[in-house]
């Protein structure tokens, strides 16, 4: 099975490796003072996992069904269960390694919170550092695989992967993440301002001459938030793996 996986998908591996090299080179020649460039890199890095889900995850099984080669693979001397396990294992491993590599490169380049001059917890910087990009990559690729095993056609699988990935990411980042832990509410004087690196959740409310009421997540919760967010996406990915197993093992070829 490992040979089959390698033989079928080595081109994608080369493309993914090439993209990583290009990203590294771009980061090396990019001036760190250029704010637009930094914004662009943030966006590119945020979109990377989605590309992985779209162009690798979604076609992985859907293409086999579309071409009928699942019938070829499933009548060789290995069971469907083993076939699916190899597909999932290698896809998840590749996504995790690639996600980790992209994050490492971006983190090294930005020394994130300093260069971006913003809270590490805020939307944007939070999504491209630490361990969450790895979870996004794994989730995206497993989402693509599960949806592909359900629709069995490449284009509908890609379209659904795109919509579902964006929806889940946005909902969790905007609606769920601010409540991972109870926010801190404090009245601070104007001179004090927001503690360094904190993520401000709502507009400051003027409460009198003493100062303003701030509601925020303190900077030292960065790794706790990374852990919770990663956990959420790994649980979602596990559910999608179960769905893929169900689709492949119980449905007719």
């Amino acid at each position, binding site marked *: 099975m490992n040979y089959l996986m390698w033989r079928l998908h080595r081109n994608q591996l080369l493309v993914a490796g090439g993209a990583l090299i290009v990203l590294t080179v771009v980061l090396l020649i990019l001036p760190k003072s250029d704010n637009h460039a930094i914004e662009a890199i943030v966006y590119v890095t945020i979109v990377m996992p989605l590309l992985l889900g779209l162009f690798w995850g979604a076609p992985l099984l859907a293409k086999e069904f579309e071409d009928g*080669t699942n*019938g*070829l693979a499933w*009548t*060789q001397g290995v*069971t469907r269960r083993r076939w699916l396990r190899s597909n999932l294992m290698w896809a998840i491993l590749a996504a995790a390694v690639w996600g980790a590599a992209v994050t490492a490169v971006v983190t090294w380049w930005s020394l994130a919170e300093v260069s971006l001059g913003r809270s590490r917890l805020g939307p944007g910087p939070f999504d491209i550092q630490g361990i969450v990009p790895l979870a996004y990559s794994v989730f995206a690729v497993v989402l693509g695989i599960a949806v592909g095993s359900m629709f069995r056609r490449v284009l509908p699988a890609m379209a659904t992967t795109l919509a579902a990935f964006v929806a889940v990411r946005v909902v969790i980042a905007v609606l769920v993440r601010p409540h991972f832990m109870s926010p801190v509410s404090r009245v601070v004087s104007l001179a004090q301002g927001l503690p360094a690196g904190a993520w401000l959740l709502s507009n400051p409310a003027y409460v009198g001459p003493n100062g303003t009421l701030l509601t925020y997540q303190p900077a030292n919760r960065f790794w706790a938030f990374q852990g919770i967010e990663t956990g959420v996406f790994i649980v979602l990915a596990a559910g999608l793996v179960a769905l893929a197993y169900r689709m492949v093992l119980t449905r007719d070829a």
Partner: protein
Amino acid sequence: MNVRDVPAIHTTGLGKRYGSNWGLQDFSVSVPRGHVTALVGPNGAGKTTLLKLLVGLCAPSAGEAEVFGRVPQQSEEFLASIGYLAQDVPLYKQLSADDHLEIGARLNRDWDAAAARARLAALRIPTNRPVATFSGGQRAQVGLSLVLAKRPQLLLLDEPMAALDPLARREFLASLTAAVADEGLSVVVSSHLLHDLERVCDHLILLAASRTQLCGDIDEMLAEHRTLVGPRRAANEIEPGLTVVKATETARQTRLLVRVDGPVLDPSWEVTEVGLEDIVLAYMEQEEAQAGGQLVELGRAQ
């Protein structure tokens, strides 16, 4: 029961439903091992469904199937015993025949790469080019080489010659004939073109409208069917022991294709032997006529 006596294929009441339609219904046959069986029937009769049920790519909705006494399932032992070539010969387009052989070698415990390479070399098929560049005939030959390299006990081929021109078809049949000359291999080949299969096969299953119409040895089938031509007469005047498959009448003559139990006694019939293709067509027409009759009745009920 001796292992040699276990039939290659044994089904009882096998059925497969797609939504509210039956793709195959109440299918009960037994095919002894060592035969080359033609699976014929019109398009949509359930040939592909039957083959998929036999290799475990589909799960039955009713009844059961056994291949060498084993229920088709996802186990390495079962998968090693069957070879399946799907309709349109799906292959990994971007890979070469060599790649496919290498993949097969790694996915199967028993793999005869040397024989496959020798066959492809004899046919002058380049093994290092992507199969996407191949003609339909070359692809079919690669597909056949791959299933044979698996050294299966039962080989199932789904319309392997449907897309081939007459020359490629003849070459494919020659390859198949040479391959099945090996002792022990049981084969089922589906086609809606009986003509191609008649030379290779010694057994026949006729599927029409999702049901079995005929199943048996081709020689016996030929011995059991006769064409009778004689003066025109009513249906109840035909002697018992003759089952009419097809009747055509002109003003003076009645022409029957019948299944006989013994010799035809009525001397007024002129009895002639009948070819396999005519027998098969007669059974298929019969099924069509019945289906047509049902439609008429439905029309009246409304």
